[in-house]
């Protein structure tokens, strides 16, 4: 679950990290009032969406109080912001963060992640702030400084100080940066984050501010932080993906026209790759999981049938814990309930395959069973393209 910039800053500010003065606004008049209340010459309006690259996409506006702030706000609010990370459909903007504009003397990158390789919480910092960390890693990797935190000792004061002194020679600034590092680490650990990032952390005169912040919570640990659900912004998440999650499914929308149901994430990815290898284009990634019930399979099928782009459905199941007969019952149930006549290509293998096959054959629905995975993928691609298929 991702937090908005203003929510991330709220967590930081509550722990004593300085952020620019400002407030969150939900309509243009409110935005104007908030801007005037800041009593400074220049303000910045920042669209609150779960995406980076907002500036380039027109989601950030630096304005003087003389300009038409209310007009600009109504231009951005209610729009869908399309950035290089959102895909063509963009993300709706329902809130603007209005902030004072600070003088920036230096920009620093600060991020906390869990390093998969070492299994340690790792703090990354760079004097090349303002850029994406991926970009810094590519162009000037020598400017990324990291510290790995021992899980039993936690972050020590000297580690934070040592890192701060690599970013500045000024004692006062180093003290503040060291406090920010410690705070960001504490937030990461206490909220089970998958990412906690301040970019840029700016030096402005003799003070340090978090100018932008991005905090993502790990979904698997949300049960420990039920209060954070209040901060979930459903408008930023895909509706089909949301309803799939409610059903215990893992669903991701893609751009094509072949609906896919697969068990297991790895096999699901391999199935998508196989479809594209045959020249087709999948409409989604959908993993029904290892131990899906008949109802879960039916729900999965219904999600695909709700998607109007889908021209053909491909079901690829390697039954382990999920039995083929359970799968067949779920699929048949959904097809009968939804009365949809889409062509369905099924390739099943594994536990209780005979029973699954019999159920499909006796269902009298437009379902084709194909034994070979490669053939099945080829046929579903041809079907979606409306070609006649032999065999």
């Amino acid at each position: 679950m991702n937090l908005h910039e203003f929510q991330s800053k709220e967590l930081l500010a509550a722990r004593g990290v300085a952020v620019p003065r400002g407030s969150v606004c939900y309509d243009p008049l409110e935005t104007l009032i908030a801007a005037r209340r800041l009593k400074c010459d220049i303000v910045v309006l920042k669209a609150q969406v779960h995406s980076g690259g907002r500036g380039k996409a027109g989601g950030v506006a630096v304005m003087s109080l003389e300009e038409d702030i209310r007009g600009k706000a109504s231009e951005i609010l209610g729009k869908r912001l399309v950035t290089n990370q959102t895909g063509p459909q963009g993300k709706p903007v329902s809130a603007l963060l209005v902030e004072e504009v600070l003088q920036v003397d230096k920009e620093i990158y600060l991020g906390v992640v869990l390093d998969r390789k070492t299994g340690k919480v790792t703090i990354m910092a760079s004097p090349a702030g303002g850029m994406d960390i991926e970009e810094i890693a590519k162009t000037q990797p020598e400017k990324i400084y990291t510290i790995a935190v021992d899980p039993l000792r936690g972050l020590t004061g000297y580690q934070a100080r040592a890192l701060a002194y690599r970013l500045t020679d000024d004692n006062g600034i180093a003290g503040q940066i060291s406090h920010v590092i410690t705070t960001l680490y504490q937030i990461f650990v206490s909220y089970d984050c998958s990412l906690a990032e301040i970019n840029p952390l700016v030096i402005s005169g003799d003070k340090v501010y978090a100018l932008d912040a991005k905090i993502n919570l790990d979904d698997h640990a949300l049960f420990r932080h039920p209060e954070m659900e209040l901060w979930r912004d459903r408008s930023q998440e895909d509706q089909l993906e949301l309803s799939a999650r409610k059903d215990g499914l893992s669903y991701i929308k893609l751009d094509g026209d072949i609906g896919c149901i697969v068990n297991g994430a790895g096999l699901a990815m391999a199935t998508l790759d196989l479809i594209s290898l045959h020249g087709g284009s999948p409409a989604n990634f959908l993993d029904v999981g290892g131990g899906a019930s008949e109802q879960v399979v039916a729900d999965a099928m219904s999600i695909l049938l709700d998607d109007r782009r889908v021209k053909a459905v491909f079901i690829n199941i390697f039954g382990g814990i999920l039995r083929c007969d359970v799968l067949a019952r779920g699929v048949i149930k959904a097809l009968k309930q939804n009365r949809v006549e889409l062509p369905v290509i099924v390739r099943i293998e594994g536990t209780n395959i005979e029973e699954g096959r019999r159920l499909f054959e006796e269902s009298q629905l437009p379902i084709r069973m194909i034994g070979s995975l490669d053939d099945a993928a080829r046929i579903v691609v041809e079907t979606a393209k409306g070609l006649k298929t032999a065999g």
Partner: protein
Amino acid sequence: MAILVNRNSRVICQGITGRNGKFHSLACKAYGTNMVGGVTPGKQGESVDGIPVFNTVLNAVNETGADTSLIFIPAAHAKEPILEAVDAGIKVIVCITEGIPPLDTASALHTVREEGRYLIGPNTPGIISPPEKCKVGIMPGYIHSPGPVGVVSRSGTLTYEVVDQLTKHGLGQSTCLGLGGDPVVGMSFVDVLKLFQEDPETEAVVLIGEIGGSAEEEAAEFIKSGGFTKPAAAYIAGRLAPPGKRMGHAGAIISGGTGTAHEKIKALEAAGVTVVENITRVGEVMRDLLAQSAR
């Protein structure tokens, strides 16, 4: 001898009286695994179809000489059972549980490594050695057959797909191991390749990777440096994945320029690994590789 588990492994199941724990303990036993006990606090003295249940892992180890554990404990509580297994002296810990908070896994893994034990998983189908008739996991046993191919994978059902193909091509397996699909797991490709290199029964290896992280690139580096010298084929899932999306496996997040399928394929090919583009061709590619090396 296969790797990590064999016919002499003495296996317990933590969480044996739960639905999955019971089902899979019995399936492992039916496959031939030496299931010597199970652990569920408060149920010592009971038995699960002849497998004795103990209150603690230490009791189970003392009574049965167990050295391997299969863990089926819900994600919210799965960290402690790993630590309990380590403290009781278990050598190989197989954690099936999916969705453990990554920081919990990370902190348990720290102890596992300090004590020099093996953690397979979490979020793994487990490990199976067909020649040794030993299965410690949830994979369907019947698709496997004994033979010379080692299989190491980050995925579950995708591994079944590949193993099924190998078996249908007459290629049996020495050991098949799922590393686990979570961001932090106990073993890496490199760890497993080291073991396969030392295992005389393993003549070739199939690596099944996916987008995210850098485990495949590290494996490529290891092979290139001469750490693994047997024939190897690889398949990488997720060439189509949109950046930043989580495709089921938490491990499969790609961001920026790292962890893409393309980069992994390039690294593996540079290390002399045969990378298979079409998942349905892994079996025949492996057959050809083995035929070549026999010449």
